[in-house]
């Protein structure tokens, strides 16, 4: 874990989170994950391993999936961050959130925010993925509950719904 007292003093960081401009003071090596959770109260990103292996802290940084536990806040300056909280407006759901619900893609829910964001990136890059491409595209996000099949079903269905919309 990065010691927030070591090294440099606090600096001012500006970035955009879920479409809203944010300005805050933080130690440059504080993790983006901690800033999101503790300073901004966005607890949807979870810490599963703290070493970039499980993907449950995933967020989109300028549209690219990143493990927020590995990003020093300095690196997030002037970027555009999207977390699970910003995926859909209050009281509505993104198509992936709906299909995860419909197809059993969420069990305990702890990997779900990161998994859904990984799926968002996947469908942005490849709107009609094959099953193998979905498996490959989500393989950086670990889920211990589902055995992945129902997650894959949910992503495939979201692609279908989007393409037929």
């Amino acid at each position: 874990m990065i010691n927030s007292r070591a090294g440099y003093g606090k600096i001012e960081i500006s970035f955009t989170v879920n479409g809203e401009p944010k300005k805050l003071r933080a130690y440059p090596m504080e993790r983006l994950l901690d800033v999101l959770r503790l300073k901004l109260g966005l607890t949807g990103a979870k810490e599963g391993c703290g070493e970039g292996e499980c993907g449950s802290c995933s967020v989109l940084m300028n549209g690219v999936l990143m493990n927020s536990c590995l990003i020093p806040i300095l690196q997030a300056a002037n970027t555009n961050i999207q977390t699970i909280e910003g995926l859909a407006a209050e009281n509505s759901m993104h198509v992936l959130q709906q299909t995860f619900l419909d197809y059993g893609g969420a069990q305990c829910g702890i990997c779900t925010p990161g998994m859904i964001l990984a799926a968002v990136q996947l469908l942005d890059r490849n709107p009609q993925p094959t099953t193998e491409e979905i498996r490959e595209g989500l393989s950086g996000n670990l889920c211990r509950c589902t055995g992945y099949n129902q997650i894959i079903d949910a992503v495939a269905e979201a692609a279908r719904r989007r393409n037929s919309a």
Partner: protein
Amino acid sequence: MTTERIIGNSVPRKEGRDKVTGRSQYVDDMVLPDMLFGATVRSQIPRGRIKNISFADSIPWDEFVIVSAKDIPGKNCIALIGDDQPCLASEFVNHPEEPILLLAHPDRHLLPQAVKAVSIEYEPPWPAIFTIEESERCTEVIWGDDNIFKTYRIQKGDVEGIWKKAAYIVEGEYSTGAQEQLYIEPNGMIAAFDESTGITVWGSLQCPYYVHKALMALANLPAEKVRVVQMETGGAFGGKEEYPSMIAAHTSLLAMKARRPVKIIYDRMEDMAATTKRHPSRTRHRTAVSREGKILGGEIDFTIDGGAYLTLSSVVLSRGAIHAGGPYYWPNVQIRAKAVATNAPPHGAFRGFGAPQSLFAMERHMDRIARTVGLSPVEIRKRNFLQPGQTTTTEQVVREAIDLGKLLDRALEVSDYTAKKKQFASKNQLGSSRKGIGIAAFLHGAGFTGSGERYLSSVVGVEGCADGSVRVLVSSTEFGQGTNTVLSQIAAEALGLPYESVTMAQPDTLEVPNSGPTVASRTAMVVGKLVQSAALGVAQTLIFSKLLQEGYSADDFRAACKQYVSTHSPFRCWSRYDPPSDIFWDDEKYRGEAYAAFAWAVYIAEVEVDLTTYSVAVKDFVALQEVGKVLHPLLAKGQIIGGIAQGIGFSLYEKVVWQNGRMQNGQMTNYIMPTSSDLPPIRVFFEELGNFHGAYGAKGIGELPMDGPAPAILNAVEDAVGVPFNSIPLLPEDIMDGLAAASEENSAVSRVGRR
């Protein structure tokens, strides 16, 4: 009321919307004012006596709250089955992750350095033991008089007489390794203390009343001064059955001393190293078989490594022993089961609870028997399957109309077994990979073993609310498996209400009764049945008070419920477990009705072994089971697939590397669980027999899928490469060594042959 409008339908997961939108609150998402963070100083050696504890000057210790065993107001133990496990070691340590001191500070990031700045000196090292064999030798006695936590003997018929009648005597030894539950949310807890209300803890946990019991003993407080609240829990699989009591105890001690709330969240490495894992096991079979391939009888020795303290080992051992004979008819059998102590952190509950270990042995052994007798894996099983009217190893009569032969035939058909078996046998001689196909047939008992449910005596409540809806009050927890959804379905079905009219109370011991622990595949079957009857009590109350008439509509119910509450108050109906009168169990002889019901299954795995890398890929997996009425097809399927994924990890990937009782690979980078690209499509099929007495005919489902994958996969590997492997996890290096040894043996045989 129409029946079964909701049961059998895949209604939306109760807390699903909060989960997919990231709104669910897990323990680490909760922050209390003035909260401190806590950390644990652990032993670094497997066994010894503490001489001195010192604190390095580099840390501003006056900013820290420090707790030792001396600060424990009550008994220094984690009360469970026994009370041998200390909450904090004061003098002796028995494993290398034993908690000794607790630290708390407002800055979470200072804690790791502070933990490192505590030095613990020990007397010159005491010898320690790390394996079942070392424990059995008793050169060091670390627990009781003989290192044995518990033994069981299951005896049926006469084993002495069978050996002379046998055409074949088949022997084998099988072993399984430790396995980490690897829920993605690490263990965590928050505690607060107040003189007037006592201790409150909020945490990631399976069993609120286990924590409640442990805290009462530790803090010497009456029941009403201990409150346990379950937060949304990010996976458990048994791994949050007993260890949360330890973390609750630690946070509570810190909070009592600090007079401020304290949060402890384990990082991944601490969680993997210090908390429980699946018991390593060794099983020895010696089986007498007739010329026709019928089992005449046998001896089964089942031994598990419990680690340093008793915890749940006696119960894990019991389930493992009862399942050791598999779904087969044994006219005579003797099962000798034993749990032994080693200087490793205690092993504990993990989905399957002893059964995956002993069933792995049974199903590998069946294939060995088949080869010895010269029958196919299919035929040997068919000749020995339990039939209705026959008895299990504990002499429980099979009353269900189960036809295991038919179940097997169906699995063979959907997996295209016969054609594939033939095709792999001929094609296998060529190329750089080998394909194989393997079977596992098994059973899993639902609910607590023997008299367990009678002792638990679970209670469930259903409340009529002011808005006309109903609320289910249980201590049964949701951790992904679907407790909230299935119990709501049952209440809605019983009352003829829409699913949306039922809510679940958060498991909070101030409010919910003790419906028992959320373990043992018991929730749908046992707790579900109680929810059904408590729900009917709510309707009866309204009918007796003349606010409602039989044949009511959902609107009538809501109006009546509203009116009742406005003139009286919110009302609750309770239901307590009433053991069926026909269930008999003898705790002394370990004989009788071990389980109220069994789930039955046949799994078929197809594998490809790469002869260059020696890696095994599971190419296809068919899971066929009879679990009674499927209450929620989507959730049920999710349980089966998820369990199989963990079973594939158990078989082929997940190896705990030990050194002096410590896990050396406690990270997700070096302890490898399956990713989405490692798994095959898993094809799930349910058969429904019906007519069972659980809620709407449900039996247990959660643990079953953990039992089958390992033997099915290792049977398939043997089918592919022609060499038997009897130990899991089976890693590429093991296959390389095994194939090399086999080819050396072959060439030695041919050299002998030439002479």
